[in-house]
């Protein structure tokens, strides 16, 4: 099988049923291959980040999606990728964070983690709770490049209103 030329396709638009189906149907019709993807609803928008293997340049890919873009009022962005599939990195540390929502939690936590050697591979966050008393929840996975102890020390110095748990991810392969 010919190795496709991979691109990262980013699509954002008002959330409504059928976006993923319409986009993937068009790409299938164009002979494109779909790779790894992250898709989720954020703030009433539906966001798609999708690896697409297809010949031609980004303009060509955008052109294929023109009718879907109009129908679903999507914004489309294409990045060329130098790498293809199978470039995943296994994380070895998981950090969970929560606290009363306030400005600066993400910056404080991720600054501390970056300085202590964590390379983030996955970060999900939510604002939950009630509208007048929101809470912030964040799940982070990453590679602890200097091991767990520096991360534990860094997190221990965070503001006292942020609750943080760090645990190793022990991969079991059998």
């Amino acid at each position, binding site marked *: 099988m010919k190795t496709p030329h991979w691109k990262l396709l980013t699509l954002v638009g008002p959330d409504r049923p059928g976006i993923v189906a319409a986009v993937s149907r068009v790409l299938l019709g164009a002979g494109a291959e779909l790779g790894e993807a992250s898709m989720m609803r954020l703030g009433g928008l539906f966001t798609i980040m999708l690896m697409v293997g297809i010949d031609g340049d980004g303009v060509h890919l955008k052109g294929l999606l023109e009718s879907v873009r109009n129908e679903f009022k999507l914004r489309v962005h294409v990045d060329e990728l130098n790498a293809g599939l*199978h470039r995943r990195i296994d994380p070895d540390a998981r950090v969970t964070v929560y606290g009363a929502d306030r400005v600066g939690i993400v910056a404080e936590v991720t600054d501390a983690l970056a300085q202590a050697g964590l390379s983030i591979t*996955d970060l999900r966050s939510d604002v939950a709770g009630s509208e007048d008393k929101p809470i912030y929840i964040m799940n982070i996975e990453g590679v602890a490049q200097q091991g*767990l102890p520096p991360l534990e020390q860094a997190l221990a110095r965070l503001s006292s209103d942020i*609750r943080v*748990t760090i645990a190793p991810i*022990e991969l*079991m392969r*059998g």
Partner: protein
Amino acid sequence: MALRDIILYPDNRLKTACEAVDSFNAELRDFVNDLLDTCASGPGAVGIAAPQVGVLQRICIVDATRARKPVPNHGKLILVNPEITAWDGFAVGREGCLSVPDYTGNVVRAEKIRLSAYDLDGNALSFEMEGYEARIAQHEIDHLDGILFLDRLISRGADLFQRKPAKSKAAE
């Protein structure tokens, strides 16, 4: 040393329930030696099950001595016709599989199990396992029932089940 080829999903043999071993003979011993060698040569492998080399019999290796960090274990175990007879607690852990390269995912497993099996001479064995070793055993015995960790994946965001964090910082 004889290495067997690891078969990869979507090979349907990985989705097939295996037959119990009924002859504890030299052929079984030879096969298990190959399985041990194959497990030892698998990148980061701490266990392997017979169907992963295309043999649909209820045989597996559980070897928590190969864990990256030391964990409670019963040594390198050869388990013939293993059965889990009791389960207790649950934990989320990250699993990968020699038969599913380039993917890892979170799976819920029992924290503690009781397991019965036979050795290569047909003698009955029983173990109480916990944590990482119990996870390996459950993963391998699943293989003998045609179940892959892919059948048990939970969302990567599902961290509500976390247990025993290494360090927790919580201001009171």
